[in-house]
C-alpha cells in the first residue's frame, strides 16, 4: 500500500466516520457573529446582549465576538453572507427588519435568499405611536377627530421600518407629512420634543427609555401600539403596554379604516416582518443538523436561564425569543408576503413618496 492510498483511505474513513462520532465542541474556538450594521445601532445592542450568554451555553464555551459589516442599509452584509458556506460552525449572522424590508419589496440590490439560511433564534419588539398634547386631547380611541390636522413626522425613510407607521396613519385617514433623512428614532423623538415634529413613534425599548417620561410629564399622549401576535397569528395587545390600544382597535373605531382587504393585509404583512420577527440569527447555507442543534440548544438554555426575562426586558424588551422550530416558523412568517401585499406597498410608495424600487 503506497502512502498515497493509505492517506486517502484514512481520509475516506475519517469522512465516513465523522457524522457518526461528531460531537460538536467549540473549545478554544472563536465564534464570529456578523452584524450587517454599524456598532451603534439596535442590532449591535441585540447581538452584544446575547453574545456573552451564548458563549456560556455553547459546548466548549467558545469566545463569541460580534463583528460589524455595515453598508447599504445591511444589504452589503447580507449579500456577503449569502456567499458563505458552512465550514466549522463558527459563523453566525444577524438580520433585522431593515434586512427583511428590501428583500420583501424586491430591492434590486438584494442578492440574498432567506430560505437558504438556517435560522436558530429570532426575537421581536413592538412599537408605540404618540401625539403632542394638543392634538392628543382630540384622540378618543378613534382617529376621527385627527383627520383634518396636518402632522409632521421625523422619518428615516419610507422604505424602512417607518413604512409601518406611515401606512397605518394613512389608513386612519390622517395627514402625516414625513420629514425624511433623520438618522435614528432618537433623533425623531428629539424633533418631537422640540415641537418641530407633532407625531412620533418609538420601538418598545426607545419608548420605555425616554418617551414614557414625556407621557408622564404630560408632554405626549400615547395613541396606539402596533400590537403583538398570538400563537395563531392574530394581533393582540402588546404585553409590554397592555393599557394602550392596538392599531387594529383604533382602525376598527375609525371611519373609513378597514381591518380587512388589501391595505390591511399589506400593513399586517409588513408589520409582522418588521416587529414581532424583527431580528433573526442565522447559520450559513449547508449547516449540518448537529451544529444547528448545538446552537438551538444553547439559545434554548439562554432563554430559559434564571433571570433572563428580567434582563431581556431591560435590554431588548418583554417579547418572546423563538428558537429552533419556532425560529424557523417565525422566519417564514417574517420573510414572506403575498404578491398582492407587495404590489400594494410598492404602488403606495410610488404614489405617496415617489419611491421607485426598480
Amino acid at each position, binding site marked *: 500500500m503506497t502512502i498515497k492510498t493509505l492517506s486517502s483511505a484514512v481520509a475516506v474513513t475519517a469522512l465516513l466516520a465523522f457524522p457518526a462520532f461528531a460531537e460538536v465542541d467549540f473549545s478554544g474556538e472563536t465564534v464570529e457573529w456578523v452584524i450587517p450594521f454599524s*456598532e451603534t445601532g439596535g442590532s449591535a445592542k441585540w447581538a452584544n446582549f446575547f453574545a456573552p450568554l451564548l458563549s456560556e451555553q455553547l459546548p466548549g464555551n467558545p469566545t463569541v465576538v*460580534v463583528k460589524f459589516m455595515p453598508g447599504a442599509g445591511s444589504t452589503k452584509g447580507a449579500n456577503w453572507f449569502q456567499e458563505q458556506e458552512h465550514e466549522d460552525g463558527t459563523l453566525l449572522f444577524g438580520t433585522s427588519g431593515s434586512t427583511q424590508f428590501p428583500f420583501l419589496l424586491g430591492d434590486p440590490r438584494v442578492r440574498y435568499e432567506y430560505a437558504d439560511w438556517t435560522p436558530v433564534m429570532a426575537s421581536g419588539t413592538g412599537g408605540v405611536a404618540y401625539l403632542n398634547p394638543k392634538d392628543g386631547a382630540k384622540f378618543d380611541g378613534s382617529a376621527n377627530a385627527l383627520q383634518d390636522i396636518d402632522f409632521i413626522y421625523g422619518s428615516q425613510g419610507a422604505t424602512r421600518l417607518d413604512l409601518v407607521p406611515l401606512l397605518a396613519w394613512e389608513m386612519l385617514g390622517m395627514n402625516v407629512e414625513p420629514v*425624511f*433623512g433623520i438618522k*435614528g428614532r432618537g433623533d425623531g423623538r428629539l424633533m418631537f420634543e*422640540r415641537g418641530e415634529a407633532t407625531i412620533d413613534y418609538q420601538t418598545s425599548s426607545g419608548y420605555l427609555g*425616554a418617551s414614557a417620561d414625556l407621557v408622564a410629564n404630560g408632554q405626549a399622549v400615547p395613541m396606539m401600539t402596533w400590537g403583538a401576535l398570538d400563537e395563531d397569528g392574530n394581533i393582540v395587545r402588546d404585553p409590554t403596554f397592555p393599557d394602550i390600544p392596538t392599531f387594529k382597535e383604533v382602525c376598527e373605531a375609525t371611519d373609513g379604516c378597514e381591518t380587512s382587504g388589501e391595505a390591511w393585509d399589506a400593513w399586517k404583512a409588513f408589520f409582522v416582518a418588521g416587529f414581532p420577527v424583527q431580528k433573526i440569527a442565522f447559520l450559513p447555507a449547508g449547516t449540518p443538523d448537529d451544529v444547528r442543534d448545538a446552537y438551538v440548544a444553547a439559545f434554548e438554555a439562554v432563554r430559559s436561564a434564571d433571570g433572563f426575562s428580567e434582563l431581556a426586558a431591560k435590554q431588548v424588551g418583554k417579547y418572546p425569543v423563538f428558537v429552533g422550530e419556532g425560529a424557523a416558523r417565525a422566519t417564514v412568517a417574517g420573510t414572506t408576503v403575498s404578491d398582492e401585499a407587495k404590489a400594494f406597498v410598492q404602488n403606495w410608495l410610488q404614489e405617496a413618496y415617489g419611491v421607485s424600487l426598480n
Partner: protein
Amino acid sequence: MDVLATALPALGDAWALILQPVVLGYLVLGVVMGLAVGVFPGLGGIAGLSLLLPFMFGMEPVLGLALMIGMVAVVPTSDTFASVLMGIPGSSASQATVLDGFPLAKKGQAARALSAAFTSSLFGGLVGALFLTIFILVARPIVLAFGLPEMLMITILGLSMVAVLAGRVALKGLAAAGLGMMIGTIGEADAGGSLRMATYDIPYLTDGLALVIVGLGIFAIPEIVSLLRQDRSIAKDAKLGAGWGEGVKDWVDNKWLSVRCSLIGVLVGIIPGLGGSVVDWIAYGHAVQTTKDKSNFGKGEIRGVIGPESSNNAKEGGGLVPTLLFGIPGSGSMAIFIGAIALLGSGDIEVGPAMLRDNLDITYSIVWLLALANVVGTLLCIAASGGIARLTTIRFTYLAPFLFMLISFAAFQSGQNFEDLLALFVIGLIGIFLRRFDWSRPAFLIGFVLSNPVEKFSNQAFQIASFRFRSSFEEGMAYIFSPIVIVLIIVTVVSVVLGIRQAKSIMAEGDVQAGSKRAPLVFLLIIAGYLVSALINANAIPDFNMTDKIVPLVVGGIALACCLILLAQMILRPETDTVFADKERAGEDADAPYGLWSTLAWFAGLIVATWFVGFILALLGFLIAFLRVRAGASWALTLILTAAGIALMCVMAGALNRDFPPGLLQDVVDLPWPLT
C-alpha cells in the same frame, strides 16, 4: 437653590465613588489602552470600546465606567501625536491641529507643539467638566432650543471658516470647498435615496466616502509623498529645537484663548447632531481672528494648535449632555458607550431623561472620571512627547513605508472593502494636486465634512418652515428667525467679513511660486469637468425628489461659477500671477531628488499587490522592496524592520479583532490568519 440641594450631595457621592484605588486603577488601565489605540490614525474610540464591550456584562458599574471613560477621553488627546508629527489627522477632532502642528514639527519644534497641545487638551477637558457639573442640571431646555434652523446656522458658521482658510486666491478656496461638498454628496441621498454620482453596480459608492479616508487622503498622503520625495527628515536638518517646557509656557501665554476655545468646544459639543466635525474649525477660525500678527498661521503658529486642541477635549464633555440627557449619542463611540452602560451591573442604569433624576451620582461620576482621565492621559502624553518627537529626526524614507502601512490599514477599517484602499489613493491624488496648485485643502475638507449636515438641516428646516408658513406667516418667521438664529447670523457675517480681509495673509500651503500656465489650467479644467458631470447627474434626479437634487445643484453651480471666473482670469492674466501657483516650479518639491510619480508608484504597488495576494503578503513584499531599493538599507536592517512592521500590524489587528484586506489569492486558497 433646589438645584444645588440635589447637586451637592450627588457630587459628594460621585467623588466618593471615584476616589477609590481600584477605580483609579481601572481608569489608568483604560487611559493606557486608549492611548495605545488613539495613536493609530483612523481607529479611534469605536474600535477600543468594541474591544471592551464583552467585559462590561455584569461588571461593577463604576469600574466599567472608569475603564470605558478612560479610553474614550484620551483618544482626542493621543491622536494629536499623528497630526503633529506626521501630518495625519487621527480623527475628525484633530483636523485643524494639522494645519499648524505639522509645520511646527517640520521646524524641529515637535515637542513644543505636542506639549502645548496636550496642556490645552488637559485644560479643555477640565473646563468642560467644571462647566458640565452645573450646566447638566439646566441643560435640557437649552438643548431643546436648538432646532433645525439653529443647527443649520451653526453648520453655516463652520462653513464660513472657509473664508479664513481660503488662501491667497479666495475663488480657489471657495471652489475647493464646493468641490469638497460635492464629493460629500456622492452616494445615496439621506432624504429620498436617490443616487448621486454613484450606481448600484458599484455598491461601495452608494454609501459615500468615509471621513477617515478623505482626511487621510487630503492631508496625510500629500505630505508623506512630498517628504519622501525630498528624502529628508520631518524636522529640517534633523535637529530638535524647543522642548516640551516651551510648549507649556506657550499655553500659559495664551491661556485666555484656551478658555474661550474650551467654552466653544463645550457649547457646540452639547448640540446633538453636529458632533465634533465643526468644533475644531470654529476654534481655529477664532484663534486666527483674535491674533494680531496673522502671518504665521499655516506655517507653524502655536495659537493654531492651542485653539483647536482646547476645544476638542472640551467637546467630549459637551457631547455627554445629549448622550446622558436624551439618550442620543453625539458620536459613534458615544453610541457604544450607551449600549455598554446598559450592560453594567444589574442593568439598572438607563441612559436617558431618568438618568439625572435617578442616577445623578453616576452622572457626576461620568463627568469627573472624564476630567480625571484627561489629567492622567495628558501627563502620560507630555512625559512621552519629548521622546516621541525624536521620530521627526529620523530620515523620512525609513518612516514612510510604515506610514503607508498604517494609513492603508486605517482606511480599510472604515468599510472593510478593498475599494477603501482605492478611494484612499484617488483622494490622495486629489490632495496632492490641491496642494501643488495652492487650492486650500482645509477648505476642501470643511466642505466635505459639512456637506451632509448642510444638506440635511436645510432640507428639513425648509420642510418644517414651509409647514409653519402654511399655518401663518408670523409662525413661520418666528420659526426661522429665532433669537439664536439672528445671533448666529451676525456672528457668521462678521466672521466672513473679517475672514476675507485676513485670508490673504494666511497661507495654509505656504508661499507658492507661480509658474507656467499649462499645468494649473489643466487641473482647473479637470475640476470643472467633474463639477459639470456632477451637475448633469444631479439634474437627472426626478423632480419629486427635489430634496435630493437641490443642494448638489446649488453648491455645484456656485463652485462651477468660481471655476469659470478662474478660467477667465487664467486666460487674461500673465503666467506670473498667483492664480498660476504651482509647487513644482520652485521650492522644496521642485528641488526634490525624486519625482512625484515614481514615489507614488510605491504606494500604488502596495495596493495592487494587496489586490492579488492580500494585505499582509503584499506588505511583506512592499516593506522589503522599499527598504532595500528606495531606502538602500542593509539586508539585516531591512529584515528586522519588516518583521517589526508586520508584527505590529498583526498584534494590533489581533488585539482589536480586525481583518486585513484579502486578495485574489485568498479567493482560491484558504490561508491561516493573518494571511486571510
